[in-house]
């Protein structure tokens, strides 16, 4: 398949120009591939490997090594809650429990409608705004139950409307164009 080669042709061209060795572009291309394929599926890895002329096994190794790549399918919105020490001192563990209870899934679980996956992650660098999470890489900070409800309502509405806002990955990788 050539999903990203078509969808993100300009981005990829720009990213490749940044390095003397195209293997360096592997992480940004994997971000784009995950965006297009939903997770780091075999096809996603193969396409990245083909573009960069590297072994798909190497791409597989990288997907296992770096925590932002998902080796299994995930929901439309991945809620990654930081419950590292600094956040936990400000209620992050209790927040995780509340989220899991509300969505009716365990940590790493995905809701039946395929909308939300809940994960806990290491420090995201927003300890002064705990509890917090990143939703598809967008930070949501100073959270409590009320704000979480609002966030979920907003995301559900967005999903229902079918309108696709550019994601954080797409917005950032767009800077590589031209």
């Amino acid at each position: 398949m050539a999903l990203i080669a078509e969808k993100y042709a300009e981005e990829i061209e720009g990213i490749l120009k940044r390095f003397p060795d195209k293997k360096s572009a592997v992480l940004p291309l994997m971000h784009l591939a995950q965006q297009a394929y939903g997770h780091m599926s075999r096809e996603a890895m193969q396409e990245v490997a083909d573009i960069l002329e590297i072994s798909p096994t190497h791409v597989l190794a990288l997907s296992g090594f770096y925590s932002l790549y998902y080796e299994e399918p995930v929901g439309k919105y991945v809620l990654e809650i930081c419950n590292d020490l600094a956040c936990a001192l400000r209620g992050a563990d209790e927040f995780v429990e509340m989220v899991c209870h509300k969505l009716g899934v365990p940590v790493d679980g995905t809701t039946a409608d395929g909308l939300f996956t809940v994960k806990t992650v290491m420090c995201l660098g927003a300890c002064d705004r705990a509890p917090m999470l990143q939703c598809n890489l967008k930070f949501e900070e100073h959270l409590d139950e009320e704000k979480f409800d609002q966030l979920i309502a907003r995301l559900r509405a967005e999903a229902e409307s079918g309108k696709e806002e550019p994601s954080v990955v797409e917005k950032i990788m767009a800077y590589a164009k031209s």
Partner: protein
Amino acid sequence: MAHILLRHRDIENIHELDVYLAHGGYEGLKKALSIQPDEVIEVVKKSGLRGRGGAGFPTGIKWGFIPKGPGEKYVIINTDESETGTFKDRELVEKNPHQVIEGALIAAYAIGARTIYNYFRGEYMDAAYRFEEALKACYERGLLGQNILGSDFSCDFYCHYGAGAYICGEETALINSLMGNLGQPWSKPPFPAIEGLYGKPTVVNNTETLANVPPILVNGPEWYTSMGTEKSPGVKIVCMSGHVERPGNYEVEMGVTYRQLIEMAGGMRNGRKFKALLPSGGSGPVITEEALDAPMTYEGLTPYGSVMGSSSVIVMDETTDMVWAALKMVHFFRHESCGKCTPCREGTFWMEKVLSRIYHGYGTERDLQILESVANQIGGRCLCALGDFAVNPVLSTIRHFFDEYKAKVSGAGQKQQATRETAVATAD
């Protein structure tokens, strides 16, 4: 006092090039371009500026290691800020990006590099739009690209985004990651200054470190050394988190005490009593009340067996279970160990397992010995510092709070249930 690094707090919209220029922006670069590269290195050496990422290596000396003469060289900005409790570089790249860009350009001019990469942790993409915009503005206005400001100096600047790996903050792991490899450290030598990115001489500097450089060029090294202490001159951004009233970043002169820092952050939350703090995120040993009047400098905590590090201060009050805190930290390091060195990979795994057993009330006296024994077999036996870091929260909490460990293994403590257990055990 006006901020030197967090200038966006005094000057609105300083992330915009025009505003930055109107407030003395890129004057440091102009100053640098008016003197020889060697002289720039000399100025930075004299300022006493040391690495702000945690290791504290003198910045000018690091630049001086780069071989002279022609050939490709690189400057890499380390914005892979991933230490637990650290969020200073994020504020800089998001709110005051030009100061970081200017600092990196001065570094590139000083060492003769024509390419700069800023390596952001992948989780900071959402904080990087302004940085990308700032780069675009610089290209449009001749501050990047060919013949910068009409000089002979040409330089390109690109952002790169990682994908979630604490270890990539270690400079050789970062370089490996930027080359498209697993982010694992290599055995030094070769040092990056000789063989770094693509085998070429490379300087890797922390984001905050580089933000210090433009004002040093403008105001001179004496101005910089007039702040802070003799051995630790200048200013530092401190990340205050945990049980304080007002967590956040605070820019201070080096040498303030930890007690003052807590006061600055509004004191202890809910008026509770102070118990302990981690001065360097997860990686430095915990300190207690006795060390609160120590100065925050590179040397200040030596008598107390700890370090300033990246000055990410995680404050804990009397309600904190220190075995729980140690377990949280060990969990972090077990997760982030890159797996290359056996003592770190296996040691962090076993430390978490044993510590978890102790915390949940199933441990024995023997487990305390095992825990210490495993910890003592990690430190100093790995390629990078991650293994040493992982040991710190364990050994330092055992040292200061042995009673709490004792209570857990003697059956005096209750067996812990669900809540925290699920959170800790499932965080992969």
